[in-house]
């Protein structure tokens, strides 16, 4: 009997969380724009991280600049949201931008460990930003790009 109650309670929780997520998504004025902006930022961060294995540190200031440009997509996406929510987004975005600026600065040192940490900080700041939005709008880590490889280039048969 208690098992049955637990199952019903669990199901109710799942339904409530799903309903809350759907409601939150519906509440946003421009959910598609938000989803797009989060993906643009994720792509730039991903591209930043790709420079690490090849030690292409000289490109990182460009990536940081692109991150700054991409941040405008987020500002535009939440432009019609209530001021309190916009302030939350701006706060999280500001921290991500500061982390990205640090990457540009640290990249000049050519210190692999420091640069890796700095790029990781951008990712962490982006996760905080993503967390402000419903899950269906958030980019899935490692799932950017087309095809079965999702960000790994063409499949082995073509690659």
């Amino acid at each position, binding site marked *: 009997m208690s098992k049955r109650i637990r199952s019903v309670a669990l199901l109710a929780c799942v339904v409530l969380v799903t309903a809350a997520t759907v409601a939150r998504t519906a509440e946003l004025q421009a959910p598609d724009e938000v989803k*797009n902006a989060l*993906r*643009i930022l994720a*792509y*730039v961060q*991903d*591209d930043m991280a*790709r*420079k690490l294995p*090849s030690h*292409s540190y000289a*490109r990182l200031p460009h990536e940081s*600049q*692109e991150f700054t*440009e*991409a941040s*405008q*997509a987020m500002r535009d996406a939440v432009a019609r949201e209530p001021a309190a929510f916009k302030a939350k987004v701006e706060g999280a975005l500001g921290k991500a931008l500061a982390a990205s600026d640090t990457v540009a600065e640290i990249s000049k040192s050519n210190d692999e460990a420091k640069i890796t940490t700095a790029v990781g900080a951008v990712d962490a700041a982006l996760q905080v930003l993503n967390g402000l939005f419903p899950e269906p709008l958030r980019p899935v880590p490692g799932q*950017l*790009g*087309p*095809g079965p490889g999702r*960000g*790994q*280039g*063409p499949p082995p*048969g*073509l*690659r």
Partner: protein
Amino acid sequence: MGAASPSRRHCLLLVGLAPLALAGCGRREPPAPVVDLMIETNGDLLEFKPTELTCHAGDHVRLTFRHTGKYVNVEHNWALILPHAFDAVTAAAVKAGEEHGWVPPGDPRILAATPMCGKGQAVMTEFIAPAAGDYPFICTFPGHAQSMWGVLHVLERS
């Protein structure tokens, strides 16, 4: 100045028909059909849209690539490459550098490529479609090809 004699008339006829006869002997293939393909970036995302294109072997392809980005100032291009050359071409593109538009000059593994273009711009390339098969296309800007790729399906000409 009278009418031409029968033998002279015969000669004139032969001279007049010669170009037609020569043209017939040339066995020229009909000109390759011109096919216009359009592709663009998926806005500011590092993705092509669409990710699949189709043409027939031997088609004269005119491909237009449009950069529809709005926010990020980054350049992209469209390059058709041989199958199984992805890693070699992307490495060669990095070596080619910005001065060559991130496209290694004269690389036989690259079948066609547009120049790089910035947001809001469009560029074009023309090529004769290769033999039937699936060919990857990519953006050769360093790091982009991991997600900016697609497939050109070249079909047999019926």
